[in-house]
């Protein structure tokens, strides 16, 4: 052992202080999920479920979008939290797989709509789709705040990717509440305003974080 290393060890030990352990993944996951589900539940309670949801729930596109949002929410959140803790590679892989399946389910919903000839623009409004997406983002802010606090305490090799995945998971969770209360059944609206919103927001979030990092690096240079 070199003298420098010996001194470093002595230095680290001499100034040691107690630390507050990061919660386990399941606890962090449950906390974020509870906040997201709570906010979504309040939204559903206030707005109420649309009439005819029972029959619409069996519509293929509606079901696949709902499945997609559920998979993206659970998978992306798990992948993000697992990345913050060293040695949780298995959990990270499971999360990545679930999130990928969620994106795949959204794509399959789009394919199904195309096959069934359901891309009708008659009742589609881009403003309504943006409204649903924006609502999902607003509803997801409390849970995102909680997830970011956990991630900042963790140690990740790719912190920006972790944050983007957390954004994807949380927005997908709140989008599922929007999906439940939204009266529109137009397939394009469901795909753009509900299923795509988490993905687009997460990509935008990641791009924004990368730009901020580049700006800071240039400033410090």
């Amino acid at each position: 052992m070199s003298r420098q290393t010996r001194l470093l060890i002595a230095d680290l030990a001499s100034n040691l202080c107690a630390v507050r352990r990061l919660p386990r993944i399941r606890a962090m996951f449950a906390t974020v999920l509870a906040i997201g589900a709570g906010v979504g539940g309040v939204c559903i309670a206030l707005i109420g479920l649309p009439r005819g949801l029972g029959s619409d729930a069996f519509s293929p596109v509606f079901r696949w979008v709902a499945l997609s949002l559920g998979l993206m929410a659970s998978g992306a959140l798990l992948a993000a939290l697992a990345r913050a803790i060293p040695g949780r590679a298995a959990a990270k892989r499971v999360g990545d797989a679930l999130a990928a399946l969620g994106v795949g389910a959204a794509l399959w919903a789009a394919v199904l709509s195309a096959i069934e000839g359901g891309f009708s623009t008659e009742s589609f409004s881009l403003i309504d789709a943006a409204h649903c997406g924006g609502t999902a983002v607003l509803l997801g802010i409390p849970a995102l705040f909680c997830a970011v606090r956990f991630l900042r305490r963790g140690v990740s090799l790719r912190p920006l990717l972790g944050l983007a995945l957390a954004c994807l998971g949380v927005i997908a969770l709140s989008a599922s509440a929007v999906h439940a209360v939204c009266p529109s059944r137009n397939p394009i609206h469901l795909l753009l305003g509900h299923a795509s919103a988490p993905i687009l927001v997460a990509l935008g979030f990641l791009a924004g974080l990368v730009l901020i990092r580049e700006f800071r690096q240039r400033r410090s240079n």
Partner: protein
Amino acid sequence: MLRKRRIETEEERLWGRLMQAAQEGDAAAYERLLHEILPVIRRHVVSQIRGVDVAEDVVQNVLLSIHRSRHTFHPARPFAVWLRAVTRNAVIDSLRASGRYDRRHEPLERHDIASDSEEFALRGEALSPELSNALDRLSGPQRQAVELLHIRDLSVAEAAKEAGVSGSALKVRAHRGRLALRRFLQEQAR
């Protein structure tokens, strides 16, 4: 196909208990743990990094990473898996940084500056032009850390307070600053 779960050895379970004690502030347990895992860390690092001097720098970076991320270890999880992940991440970080780092460096001979914290004392002495130039090349935070700890000779607590960061963060900055200074001085020596 399920992966076979590796059985944790008694030694690894002991390390887990030592880390748990370190999380509660037990300095003796922490120091013992770091000494005991050092050969394991060095084996991982040497298998991936060329050059003994560079490997030792990376080993020190791994120790700092362990120190910074000790709060992420949970006693119910295997310590060896956590240690391997922290080591791997620190090695990857070092390899990323090594794109700007010339591995074919020679041991420092021209200057009296040692890179360990105790000997790196420049208190009040006139800085050579080479050292001044090298200090100017450091990033702001690293230069501040080196100046506070080694030129103004403040204690870690005092320096951390002045810099507005935690003691651990300041020590990491100072350590990286010392490594960078050594690199710059070697470049100037060629």
